[in-house]
């Protein structure tokens, strides 16, 4: 099967969304992410980056327009189907505070498998999910049983973000969505994190949608998309 025949990973068309029904915080004519593609989304604060990510992950639905994930009409599915699609096909990395404080490192990674049978099955192809979690953590530079049994809160911010990356990657989701994951890191940690994330995405053939206001990172990506702040209406 020719790669080009397969539907793109993600297609957004004519998106409009307003949080409280007052004013659109997002108006995006078109956004496409192909498989294996690394897309950098840049926008000033208030340009609706987080809102866009909520739409893409199916947490909310657009007022107008549609979103297609792996050929499925994400924006027009009922909530539980959207939750299922997110669990199965999307790995999400928050800006910070990614981890549940009451779980250890490995259990935090395994959360992704807990809510998706598909990712549970994918992750246990070469043994158990736990093996896969440990392998991913090793690859992300968090090696050693002692570290992996630690409480998530005992890690440095940089380590926590790498655990979050492992959780996003486990079970081979097609799309990794990262919301300014490096903004809380210093330069060295940022570069190390980005290198590891990009390498693992490439290895798992996952598409990457990376949001940041740090234009210096754009050079690592295939493509950059600019989000502009919505023009203020006269009334507002």
């Amino acid at each position, binding site marked *: 099967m020719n790669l080009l025949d397969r539907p793109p990973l993600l297609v957004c068309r004519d998106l409009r969304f307003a949080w409280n029904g007052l004013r659109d915080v997002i108006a995006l004519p078109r956004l496409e992410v192909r498989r294996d593609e690394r897309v950098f989304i840049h926008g000033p604060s208030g340009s609706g980056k987080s809102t866009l990510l909520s739409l893409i992950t199916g947490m909310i639905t657009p007022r107008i327009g549609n979103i297609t994930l792996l050929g499925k009409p994400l924006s027009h599915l009922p909530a539980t189907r959207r939750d299922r699609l997110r669990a199965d096909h999307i790995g*999400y990395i928050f800006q910070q505070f990614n981890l549940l404080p009451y779980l250890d490192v490995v259990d935090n990674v395994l959360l992704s498998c807990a809510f998706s049978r598909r990712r549970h099955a994918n992750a246990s192809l070469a043994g158990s999910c736990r093996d896969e979690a440990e392998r991913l953590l090793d690859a992300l530079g968090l090696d050693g049983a002692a570290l992996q049994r630690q409480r998530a809160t005992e890690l440095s911010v940089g380590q926590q973000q790498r655990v979050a990356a492992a959780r996003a990657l486990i079970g081979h989701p097609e799309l990794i969505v990262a919301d300014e994951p490096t903004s809380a890191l210093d330069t060295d940690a940022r570069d190390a994190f980005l290198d590891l994330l990009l390498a693992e995405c490439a290895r798992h053939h996952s598409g990457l949608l990376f949001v940041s206001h740090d234009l210096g990172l754009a050079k690592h990506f295939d493509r950059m998309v600019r989000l502009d702040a919505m023009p203020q209406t006269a009334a507002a």
Partner: protein
Amino acid sequence: MRLLVLAFKSMRQRRYAVALTVLTIALSVLLLLGVDRLRRQAHSSFASTVSGTDLIVGARSGPVNLLLYAIFHVGDATSNVSWQSYQEIAALPEVAWTVPISLGDSHRGFRVMGTTTAFFDRYRYGAGNRLGFAEGAPFGDLYDAVIGAQVARRLHYRLGQSIVIAHGFGGMRQMLHADKPFRVVGILAPTGTPVDGTVMVSLAGIEAIHVDWRSGMRLPGMQISAAQARTMNLTPTSITAFMVGLKSRLATFAVQRAVNDYTAEPLLAILPGVALDQLWNLVGAAENTLRAVSAMVVLVGLCGMLTALLTMLDERRREMAILRAVGAPAHAVFLLLLSESALLAIAGIVLGVALLYAMLAVVRGVVQERLGIMLTLSPPAPGEWLLMGAVLVMALLAGCLPAWIAYRRSLADGLRMRL
């Protein structure tokens, strides 16, 4: 299942707040079940104060009144039953046995009851328990007395103790039957009934101390010594009341009617079980108040749980956003919070029941001795399971509030992390 594990681990993280919440619920459950158990066992102790007796007969008054003075020794009889009426009713063909009761005197605050040795054979309490002697034996001599367990304990009496009976129930010094002292020959085992606080002597003994008395006063210039009294005819002219056992319980109502229609004097026969229930209903208002208070305490306990869950919701928004991001549907957030309420309530109920049994084990001896209430360590009764179930259901209903708030928030927040 995985939600329960998450809820459990999450609560372990907040163990101090959780432990306090569980303790609050446990204490309220302890009170609820404790009050219920005490109430039921007080009722059953009370209802079996007299068992095995078919009828109690006294002068005509009210059933509760007769029961109060004849069995509980509370208040005084308005009039007596003549010895002749007693003899005639005792001779009815349906009657198997009778035990006369003659009241009116006291010893240091305890009632003195004149009766026959049949009392020790016929009186039953609880599930047909007989009176037992801790020491000694029934009275044989005219001036012998048997004392209840409480009398012996309070007054530190041993066998052979000489006691003086006072006239009436005021304990006034000048009214002592000091010329005819009695000797303790028997001490009864504790029963938890009014018998524990009673001094029992023979009918003839009661008669003997009154031979030189009329209308509650010592006859002036008339002194009959204890030894002289022995030679006299000591058949009483009247008694206070008597207990009746029938050959067949089928005859109960017929005999009761015969006594109530007795023409020689106005008498009243009551069924002790029915009268005991009537008496219990009188104290029912207090009982309901107690139950209402314990139910309120459970509500307070659940409010404590709600407070703890609601105040923690804000700091847990991040936790909910993470779970949503890894694909947990919004209803899983609801269920997570609800299962926390369930775990808290179940832990509280289990701890409450454990505390209840621990407490019962500690206090049952004292309660039995002091209050005469037999507390058993029996497994929870159906009513108690029902109460526990009600607490759990109420906890789940209450838990819907934080669960619903978290559910609404996680829908509204999307993936925006609010800190």
